């Protein structure tokens, strides 16, 4: 069942490839249908997920829909997939975002519609596979394939200087993945019996109490994931990649690919290296706070809307790193707070996916109309495009962490959970939400309010297609903001188990 969910998009993509000269409309609607079907299947996984009483207890809570087939017997690598409380929300978010991209891409202008659709279907399989992978090698393969896929998206459909940005993106994150591979090999070598299986490794915790070896392996894995996340100072590939990527590419890049980094921390680094994680959590906390403040301040100085959103991603990912680091520093008595911080981190991954997805689609709308992201060129858009302005306002307020939207649920949990273990760092990180409030309100004023700017009259309101892609993302953000329990109920058991492990 799980494999069907993962490989359905790829299968549809292959079918599209072998069709002799399909019409553009057929391709676009097939893509939408495939994404919708996959989302329906993920919802099915969600509904029937035995979150409370799992089939088999593992260290991070019950695991469901497990499948395991031996893949490379000589090194003990297998095709092992399964779903727990961490992966389920991310898979759902991934399916939602890919559907939004499919809808947004209906009636694309220009040729190569089939290649575009197939590439995204491929990326969807890769992303879903990564979030369900339970084997380090499998994880790594999906991790690298995501980089390859995104390289072609940016290089093939970007604007500005796409070839250069795509190459930088590819080389930088690929280098990061090599560090990750080094760490994985370190884990493999230390394990006994030798294996790449995450569940077995989490049971063995092979480098526990082995001195500097655990720290070095964590360093390798940490750097690899930090590049992907990205955290300061490894973030410089992100702004150019976003600025030059097509709107839907940015959505997947920010919404899904960045989460592969933070998800890796939760899935691999924390359960397999809990001791090393606790020992070096302060580094994570510092990196997290630096990302929060640095990302927010640099975003404040931007005049290019898309670049600004890109930097706020650095800020938002920083909160996650802070929360995960703080969980590592929590004492046994604070394990409730640690679980809250971890839950907040996962919620932030989902929330950021939805909100930033919406923001990048809105940026794409702006670029489609007037070919520029420069905020000074607009103004007073609310009069010409009220629906556009209303959706943007919701997305902006969600991103600045307004209660009633998903960002607040995430950030509140991270702050409340982190303050006990790391009070000073958390107090500093709080300033981040003040700066993001200032920068989003300023962007709102520059783009939508006040008098018109030179490009304002070129911007019409959202079409039905654009609204249909963007509005559901924001509706989900509101749903999580008002009734978070349906999401938190899935995450909390896994977060509690993980918190017990790293605070233990």
């Amino acid at each position, binding site marked *: 069942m799980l494999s069907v969910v993962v490989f359905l998009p790829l299968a549809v993509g292959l079918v599209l490839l072998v069709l002799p000269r399909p019409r553009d409309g057929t391709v676009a609607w097939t893509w939408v249908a495939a994404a919708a079907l996959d989302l329906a299947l993920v919802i099915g996984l969600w509904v029937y997920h035995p979150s409370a009483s799992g089939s088999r207890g593992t260290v991070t809570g019950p695991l469901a829909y497990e499948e395991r087939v031996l893949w490379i017997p000589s090194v003990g690598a297998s095709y092992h997939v399964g779903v727990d409380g961490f992966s389920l929300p991310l898979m759902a978010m991934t399916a939602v975002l890919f559907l939004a991209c499919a809808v947004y891409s209906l009636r694309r202008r220009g040729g190569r519609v089939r290649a575009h659709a197939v590439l995204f279907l491929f990326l969807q399989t890769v992303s879903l596979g990564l979030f369900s992978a339970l084997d380090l090698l499998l994880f790594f393969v999906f991790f690298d394939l995501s980089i390859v896929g995104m390289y072609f998206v940016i290089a093939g459909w970007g604007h500005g200087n796409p070839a250069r940005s795509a190459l*930088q993106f590819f*080389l*930088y994150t690929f280098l990061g993945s090599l560090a990750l591979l080094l760490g994985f090999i370190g884990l493999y070598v230390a394990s006994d019996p030798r294996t790449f299986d995450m569940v077995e490794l989490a049971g063995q915790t092979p480098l526990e109490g082995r001195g500097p070896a655990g720290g070095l392996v964590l360093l390798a894995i940490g750097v690899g994931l930090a590049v992907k996340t990205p955290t300061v*100072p490894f973030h*410089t*590939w992100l*702004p*150019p990649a976003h600025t030059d990527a097509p709107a839907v590419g940015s959505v997947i890049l920010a919404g899904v690919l960045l989460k592969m980094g933070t998800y890796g921390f939760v899935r691999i680094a924390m359960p397999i290296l809990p001791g090393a994680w606790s020992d070096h959590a302060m580094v994570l906390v510092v990196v997290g706070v630096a990302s929060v403040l*640095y990302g927010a*301040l*640099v975003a*404040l*100085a*931007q005049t290019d809307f898309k670049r600004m959103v890109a930097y706020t991603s650095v800020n938002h990912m920083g909160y996650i790193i802070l929360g995960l680091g703080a969980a590592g520093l929590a004492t046994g008595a*604070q394990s*409730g*707070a640690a*679980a*809250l911080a971890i*839950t907040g981190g996962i919620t932030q991954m989902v929330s950021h996916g939805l909100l930033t997805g919406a923001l990048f689609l809105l940026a794409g709308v702006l670029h489609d109309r007037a070919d520029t992201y420069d905020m000074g060129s607009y103004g*007073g858009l*609310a009069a010409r495009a*009220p629906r556009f302005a*209303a959706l943007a306002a919701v997305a902006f*307020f969600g991103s600045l962490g*307004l*209660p*009633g939207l998903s960002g*607040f*649920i995430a950030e*509140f*949990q991270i*702050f*409340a*959970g*982190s*303050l*006990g273990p790391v*009070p000073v760092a*958390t*107090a500093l990180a*709080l*300033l981040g*939400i*003040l*700066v993001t*409030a*200032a920068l989003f*309100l*300023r962007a709102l*004023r520059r783009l*939508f*309010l*006040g*008098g018109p700017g030179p490009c304002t009259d070129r911007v019409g309101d959202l079409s039905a297609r654009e609204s249909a892609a963007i509005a559901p993302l924001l509706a989900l953000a509101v749903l999580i903001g008002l009734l*978070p*329990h349906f999401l*938190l109920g899935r995450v*909390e058991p896994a977060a*509690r188990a993980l918190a017990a492990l790293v605070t233990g």
Partner: protein
Amino acid sequence: MTASLWALVGLPAMVGAVLLVSGRRADPVAAPCAVAAAGLALAAAGVAAVSRPSVSVPMLAGIPAGLAVDGLSAVAVLTVAAVATAVLLFASAEMGADQARGRFFGLMLLFTAAMLVTVTATDLFTLLAAWEVMGALSYALIGYWWGEASRVRSATLAFVTTRAGDLGLYLAAGAALAGGAGALQLSGLAALDGGWRDAAVAGVVVAALGKSAQLPFSFWLSHAMAGPTPVSALLHSATMVAAGGYLLVRIEPALAATAWAGPVLVWAGAATALLLGAVAFHQSDLKQLLAASTCSQLGFVVMAAGAGSVGGGMLQFTAHAAAKSLLFLCAGVWLAARGTQELDGLRGAARRRPLAGAAFTVGALAVAGLPPLPLWTAKDEVLAAVLHLGPAPYAVGLAASAVGAAYAARALAAVWSPVPAEEGGASPEGSEQRPPPSEALPLAALAAATVGLGVLVLPAAARWWRALLGAAGGPQPPAWEMAVSGLLAAVVLAATWWMCARGRAEAASGRRWAGGWLGLETAADTLVVRPVAALAQALAAFDDRVLARGVRACADGVTRTADLARSRGETGADEAVRAVASGARTLAAWALRPQTGLLHQYYVQAVVALVVLAAVVVLMR
């Protein structure tokens, strides 16, 4: 009776959300829907005040979201719902068909709902959520006329400033969790462990001072006047700014549990009451005067919380809400009629519009602290509690109430002064024109409420009030003290009115400093905004020129190394291989030389070789 609580917060929220989403399509029905929703919420507040319901829904792990109505919040929900109903009714006449009424009334209702949740919240999560939503909605309301960039800038400033204070609540939530109040209950703050209690209380205090526009945050309230008048009437009376004072009164046990919070709040409140009172006195714009007066009056609520006077603080909260919304609505009437809110331009306004004039007079006299109006009682009760902390804050508080009488007199003198001669008898506003009921009714009701609350000076009523709030005991002002303060208010009021009527108050010193809100905004701009902006620019430049370029330099370095390898390494290796080849060729040529094909030469070679071999053997032995 939890239904009453759900109706209380749910009705305005639902109707407001529907109006907001419907946009301009809802314009024709927005006003009646909003008034009806607010009226029903008022009825629900009445039921809830009697039945005292409480609800709790699961929210985060171990942190349910709770709402409850106790004595304190019963007073608050009735005040909020009543003022909101009056203001919305007034606004239904004020906001004409040319305005986006769906958006306006939707936002107002949502805002009211957020305030109602704020005052009924039992835990920090719910409180913080409603508190921040209220802030964001105030942004939308202040920036309601978004076409003008200056109004949007004012709204942004108000939101960012109050959010700076809100960070305190995030801090408080984390401290409460760390200190042992797992469900973040407000009632658990007093019992937190050690330093966490101080941190939590400090966070709440900062948030409350920010929201209530106390020093040093006061300047945002001046900008909050950029919205429509009904917005000011709601924001600056019963909601938003009042929330800070209310929260402090609610967590009074926790404040009392720390040694420092009481004195800090008393001094912060006293300083705000006095200094912002002076600011109010020096305003030339009626709405700005009222705004500064709001800070000043709420200073007494803050003082009450610090001094532990729950009864006095809540009376100040409620009476100020009624009086101040009344004053703002009157200002709105005149603004609509004359198109100005400058005091000079409002000369004789009260004579033209007798109803508004009478209502304004009631509100202003109440704010002046004139007996037997309720703010007189409230201030004396607060000051009696403050006296226990020493004579100095008491003296400042008394001076602040005298200043209150002074600015009230200044406003009254302006609106009651004779109509300027040039306007003549035939004025366009027409004093004979009867005000519409939607304008008259709220003014009359709020004026009646302002006067009626004066009944709480009676000992029996005062006892009931304190029992309602669960604040039995506490110091009561002696009769002579009340007489003195009442007399002081009356004398200052009369004297200032007399001076203003003769045009002598204009020469008051310190006009620029106080008139400009103590330079607080300039200070915030210089000390915070500009440095942060400069830091942001510097970091952005660092990001582009150092970090990004550094990464690119690394990549370029690899390319250059590759070039070097090609130009030097590759040719070098090639040449080495060639050298080996030519060396081999040379050697081969040499090796060919002995191959002559002549037998005798081969013999010679063999002999030479043997001799050499023999020599080697001999020598090596």
